[in-house]
């Protein structure tokens, strides 16, 4: 089952002589349960593509369908609703809200998604599952980078999204911590069936990926599946 389908997606910046096509014409389908990596050199269009898939930006041309919904037909409010309910984000710099505790950061995602159950329990359980049972009351600046990224993972997953977008999630972590973080995400992918899409240069991420999409100069250069992912 496809989660996300891109057809002829292009993204231009600027105009006239200063026009830059960050994405030219991408056709790509992401299936449920995939652990996909977007890779490529700087300026290849990884982040731009990730923004399209994550509904943070709209394409200049082409269409993006998320779970069958044409994203281009949605207004700002509906796009925000879609992101709140169906997409989780994990960022390179963790992007936790610094005035909120780990527990509150996770609860915030539930609050925005309109979660109707016991938010405290759901957030607490998710933090337990990423190994942060002892750190729930800590503010981001009272935690290590690895712990903050675990909070970010919990925040992305707690609302049970269809898709998690992870933009270079290990770039600010040492290799050991990065590996732990990737293992957690891979574990969640396998246990919960959550679809992950990464953008990265990190070989550790590529080792664990089931599918690797290589971009070059805004075009899809290579799209391959790894049978021994995680080896």
């Amino acid at each position, binding site marked *: 089952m496809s989660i996300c389908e891109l057809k002829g997606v292009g993204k231009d910046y600027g105009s006239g002589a200063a026009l830059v096509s960050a994405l030219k014409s991408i056709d790509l389908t992401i299936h449920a349960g995939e652990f996909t990596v977007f890779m490529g050199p700087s300026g290849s269009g990884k982040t731009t593509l990730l923004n399209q898939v994550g509904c943070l*930006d709209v394409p200049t041309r082409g269409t993006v369908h998320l779970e069958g919904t044409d994203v281009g037909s949605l207004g*700002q409010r509906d796009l*925000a609703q*879609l*992101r709140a309910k169906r997409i989780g984000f994990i*960022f390179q710099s963790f992007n936790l809200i610094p*005035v909120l505790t780990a527990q509150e950061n996770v609860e915030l995602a539930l*609050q*925005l*998604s309109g979660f109707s159950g016991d938010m405290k329990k759901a957030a607490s359980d998710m933090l337990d599952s990423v190994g942060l049972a002892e750190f729930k009351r800590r503010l981001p600046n009272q935690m290590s980078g690895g712990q903050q990224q675990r909070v970010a993972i919990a925040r992305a997953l707690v609302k049970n999204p269809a898709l998690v977008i992870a933009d270079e999630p290990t770039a600010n972590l040492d290799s050991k911590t990065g590996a732990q973080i990737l293992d957690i995400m891979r574990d969640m992918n396998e246990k919960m069936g959550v679809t992950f899409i990464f953008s990265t240069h990190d070989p550790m991420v590529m080792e664990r990926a089931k599918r690797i999409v290589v971009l070059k100069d805004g075009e899809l250069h290579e799209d391959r599946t790894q049978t021994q992912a995680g080896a």
Partner: protein
Amino acid sequence: MFLARLGFWNLMRNKLRTLLSVVVIASGVFTLISGQGMIGGLSLNIIMTQIQTVSGHVALQPEDYPKEPLSHPVDNLITIDADAEQWLDTNTVAWTKRIQFAPEAIFGGDGLRVKAIGFTDKDETVFNRDDWDIREGGKMPATAEDGVLVATGPADLLGLKAGDDLTLKVRTHKGALNAMSVKVAGVFSGGSPIVDSQVVMVPWDLAQTLVRNGDKTSHVNILLSDRFDMNDVGQQLTGYPLPIADLDDPKRVSEAVVNDAGFVTWESETRALIDIQQIRQNALNFITFILLMVAGFGIANTILMAAYERIREVGTLRAMGMTRDKVLTMFVIEGAMLGVVGGVLGVLAGGAMVWNYATYGLDLTEAIKESGEANNNMPFKPIIYFDFDPSMLALGFAFAVVMAIVASIYPAIVASRMVPADAVRA
């Protein structure tokens, strides 16, 4: 609720900046409340002193009576007949006759022009004597035998004390010179420079002997149940004839008249001073407006800086599904919180100060002494009781909150329009 909590913690991030914004807002509200309380209290002081000490609500006096201090001619006096007295008894709370004249008070070779007030036994029903302080050894005179009561100003200048014999030299109603030696019954302070600086209180029968005015008088002072009826009553009394409801004989109606009288009121006599007060109030309002504008720009700056400092956070919140409206609301709430806290502090500080001076008064006695004779002809008492008006507290608070909300709208719009794709990686 969640946005409010988030707003609160965001404000607590930069405590010094938040504190400064709050202090500026509180200063504006404090200035508004305390200034309005003081000016309102001073205006009320002027009005009440005019009523209780100088004129009552309405004062009948000869037409074209001069306004100059210590110029109290007695050549043109008014007559109030029995029917008019009856009308006054029926239609007013209280009234009394006063004859004002300007004798030369002579004692020990020194002479001084004073303002003499010939008063009747009904005087205290119109004029409040609660603040009067008759110095030790003195008493309130009732008749010519008791003598006169001299205010502290002339008493100090002439060196008078109770029991002294004072010579009063006057022009009579007909213009002849007259002089009498009278006993000083006491020395008093009336609690107001306009009394203390110049007044000698003379019992009615003694005044009649000095001025030879018979039953005529220079003033009829009247208290009403509603002070704002002053012009209606003044016009009726100086019209012709007076409407006397209980008279059956039409001929008597035509006799009910106060002859050749004009009238002044507490309002006409204080208008110039109140107008000055109004100018002061407008100036204060302008200063307050400037202060609150400064506070507004401070808030706008605070929120705008907060928005730019938190671009990545705003982007993250937008990525997580927060709508533009909620981002805008979050920043407006932060501004409103600054307004609420600043407003509450300003109201508490300003309210406490105004309440304190409304209860215990602000004593300007020394300041008035230092200003010399400048205040001697102004009707006010040196202890100013501020006007504690709860609606002004509410207005100050509301003004602070509304101003803070308005000031935070622009930065909130800036924050809400950030592009999430760019903002998350800022």
